[in-house]
């Protein structure tokens, strides 16, 4: 027997040796420091950069990419006021119909060509064909014309109160200024090249979709003199290189941050935050002061939610706290209650009409459901199980509706399939739907024009296609009004109508924390993650 063991020894020794070779070698050989000149900011972004054209897509990740590469004519500051950015200044004619905008001189694109008024005109036209707020602006615009190399005019057909708000729109789609040769690309096609005039240059050769995106400092960028404030002010590129390292698995990304393999984790999973907070070298902070709004959207084309009493019943049945605990868990990261359709903390915050949402009232909900004539038919809730924020809202809604006697079916699917299915107008039993969950950043919900979930223009409205002429009248009146106090009065009236009509249930306002290591400083507080001004030791 001893002989046999002895005989096998070389075999097993070889096996063990080969198997452990990498481990032993790894222990013996230290990895040489990666040759890297200058400072690098390594970020785990919230999503993978799948496409590079921020006008072609509304994806937030492409918007964030856009802010690194491109610049805007105007930009929103932390007081939610629009400030000139690429624009030197602007003039408005006495009748309020002509805006003349002058660009700062000396701005150049990454390919070395100067930024001209022709570039701005072409960029605004393309953005106006694609973006919701842009389309609204274009509907009252007679012409956009270059006057000379640095100035251009926007001529309106009627007074419009949101011209600068539109040009300084902070979230998707942002009116970024591109070279005219790129901006002339059809809005339904992606631009073929990423050339901007922003503080960082996109390194196309190093782009690996699903893994890595690299930006390098644009040496010829001319920042403004004012301090950075939200999207406005001086954008100082303090690092030579920004790397987005997409790590799809939240646990792995958390460990990578703890191990110092990355510097900043944009949206750590809430349940892993205590683990991150246990490391004193890591800061966990909410950098978006406005937060995010959860949304439960109804389909107005089919019963039972084509009836407002059924929608009101659903609103009485739910509780914002249930939604928020399912999404964020920790009350530190959400508002106890927010009844403002246009966000708490925003310029148009009001709680008028919100009593229906404030307290869960199942008896009242059952009464309203009976009043709606609900016949026990199946209600299909789309449930994107791969997106926790949406999945949690779907489950909470299903439970609440079951409690008031609705026959609910959760249709489990992935997010991409849901985005296709929510566009289907057929009856739920034929592949359509009754309810889908989603969310919007607060900056997208701050007023009745950017908040497209309140639009009620029927066929042309957002998915769900609500039709309510009174709501549309009030939205139009808001857009035409130039005085903010008068706009506030319109919003109060509008919100009363919204709580009666219930285009969607605002399921609460929550705040997503960001985490970064101690070598990172000067992270900007803003509703969009901006990567200028940040320094890395």
């Amino acid at each position: 027997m001893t002989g046999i063991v002895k005989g096998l020894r070389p075999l097993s020794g070889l096996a063990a040796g080969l198997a452990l070779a990498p481990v032993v070698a790894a222990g013996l050989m230290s990895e040489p420091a990666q040759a890297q000149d200058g400072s690098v900011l390594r970020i785990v972004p919230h999503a993978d950069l799948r496409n590079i054209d921020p006008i072609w897509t509304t994806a937030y990740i492409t918007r964030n990419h856009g802010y690194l590469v491109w610049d805007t004519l105007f930009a929103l500051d932390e007081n939610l006021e629009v400030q000139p950015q690429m624009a030197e200044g602007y003039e408005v004619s006495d009748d309020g119909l002509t805006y003349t905008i002058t660009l700062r001189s000396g701005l150049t694109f990454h390919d070395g060509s100067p930024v001209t008024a022709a570039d701005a005109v072409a960029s605004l036209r393309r953005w106006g064909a694609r973006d919701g707020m842009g389309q609204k602006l274009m509907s009252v615009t007679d012409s956009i014309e270059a006057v000379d190399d640095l100035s251009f005019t926007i001529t309106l057909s009627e007074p419009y109160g949101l011209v600068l708000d539109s040009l300084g729109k902070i979230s998707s789609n942002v009116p970024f200024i591109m070279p005219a040769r790129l901006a002339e690309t059809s809005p339904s096609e992606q631009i073929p090249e990423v050339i901007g005039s922003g503080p960082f240059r996109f390194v196309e050769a190093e782009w690996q979709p699903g893994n890595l995106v690299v930006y390098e400092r644009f040496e010829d960028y001319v920042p403004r003199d004012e301090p950075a404030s939200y999207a406005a002010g001086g954008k100082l590129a303090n690092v030579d290189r920004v790397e987005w390292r997409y790590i799809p698995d939240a646990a792995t990304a958390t460990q990578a941050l703890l191990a110092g393999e990355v510097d900043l984790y944009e949206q750590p999973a809430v349940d892993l935050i205590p683990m991150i907070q246990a490391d004193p070298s890591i800061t966990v902070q909410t950098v978006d002061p406005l937060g995010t709004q959860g949304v439960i959207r109804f389909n107005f084309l089919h019963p039972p939610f084509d009836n407002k009493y059924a929608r009101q019943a659903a609103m009485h049945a739910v509780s914002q706290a249930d939604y928020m605990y399912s999404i964020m868990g920790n009350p530190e990261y959400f508002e106890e209650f927010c009844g403002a359709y246009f966000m708490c903390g925003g310029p148009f915050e009001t709680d008028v009409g919100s009593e229906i949402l404030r307290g869960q009232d199942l008896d009242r909900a059952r009464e309203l459901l009976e009043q709606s004539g609900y016949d026990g038919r199946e209600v299909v809730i789309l449930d994107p199980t791969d997106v926790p924020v949406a999945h949690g809202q779907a489950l909470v809604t299903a439970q609440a509706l079951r409690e008031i006697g609705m026959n609910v079916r959760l249709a489990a699917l992935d997010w991409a399939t849901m985005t296709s299915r929510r566009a289907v107008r057929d009856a739920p039993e034929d592949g359509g739907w009754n309810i889908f969950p989603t969310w919007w950043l607060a900056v997208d919900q701050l007023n009745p024009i950017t908040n497209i979930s309140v639009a009620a223009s029927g066929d042309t409205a957002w998915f769900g296609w609500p039709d309510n002429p009174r709501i549309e009248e009030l939205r139009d009146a808001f857009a035409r009004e130039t005085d903010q106090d008068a706009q506030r009065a319109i919003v109060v009236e509008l919100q009363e109508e919204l709580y009666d009509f219930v285009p969607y249930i605002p399921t609460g306002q929550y705040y997503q924390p960001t985490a970064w290591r101690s070598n990172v400083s000067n992270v900007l507080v803003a509703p969009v993650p901006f990567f200028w001004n940040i320094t890395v030791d």
Partner: protein
Amino acid sequence: MFAYVVRRLLATIPIMALVAVFVFMLLHMSPGDPAVVIAGDFASVAQVEEIRTQLGLNDPLHVQFLNWAAGLFRGDLGTSIYSGLPVSRLIGQRIEPTFMLTLTTMIIAITLAIPLGVIAAWKVGTWIDRAVMTVAVLGFSLPVFVLGYALILGGSVRLGWFPVQGYTSIFTSFPGFLRHITLPALTLGLVYMALIARMTRATMLEVLNEDYVRTAYAKGLPTRKVLIKHALKNAMVPISTTIGLGLALLIGGVVVTESVFAIPGLGRLTVDAVLRTDYPVIQGVILVFSLTYVLLNLLIDLTYVLFDPRIRY
């Protein structure tokens, strides 16, 4: 042998054609419309239609297939609907990490599994046999992601020996490559090792009862020689087959392992493409996986000659 190889290679063509048709039809019949996803929240029905036309999704299915197939003949796998990058570039970026992960996993698994299987068969019924089989059952039962997290916790977080995630090319830094590949390869290797070890044990048990093994012992040959030269060599044909078939298992595991360790390989490319219905990328990746699988099985078939002189092609 040469004629056999040529014949098998020619047989690959109809197989790949069938795979191409199957993959194309399956994808285009499954739910999901990339045009709607691309169009975003503000698009009108007309704009969605325009995007669909731009992408060629409004063409009849057979026209879409023929366009894609014509591209394949030119060596063009198409362009990603989302990134606009050629599928061949996306696959090219991802081949090395997946290839090296698979290769390292196979080296670790085979070099551990075969000796363990031989020992278990030789020591059948003893605690050694039971220990080996326990490890094998555990390897088979433990989900890849659980083992992956456990190894990250131990090897990276607690001990700090290995990086948590990422990949370094073997051509950039060999030590860096080893540091990055070790944990993923061990994670992926366990299930593969379990499969091969079990098959080795079973086949060896059968062979060890053959008359020629008894004769070899009777001749006074040392146990090492009997086990390796006489028994194992004869057991290698089914073991080789298992190694080949196990590759499918390995490819499935690669997808999870690459996600857990954030390795930019073909597995993650596949998952990302499926989640956003990026048809050309899914089709391209599945074709590459299928071709690899077919060719590796041919290679395995050819190795039979090494172990069994009766086999002639």
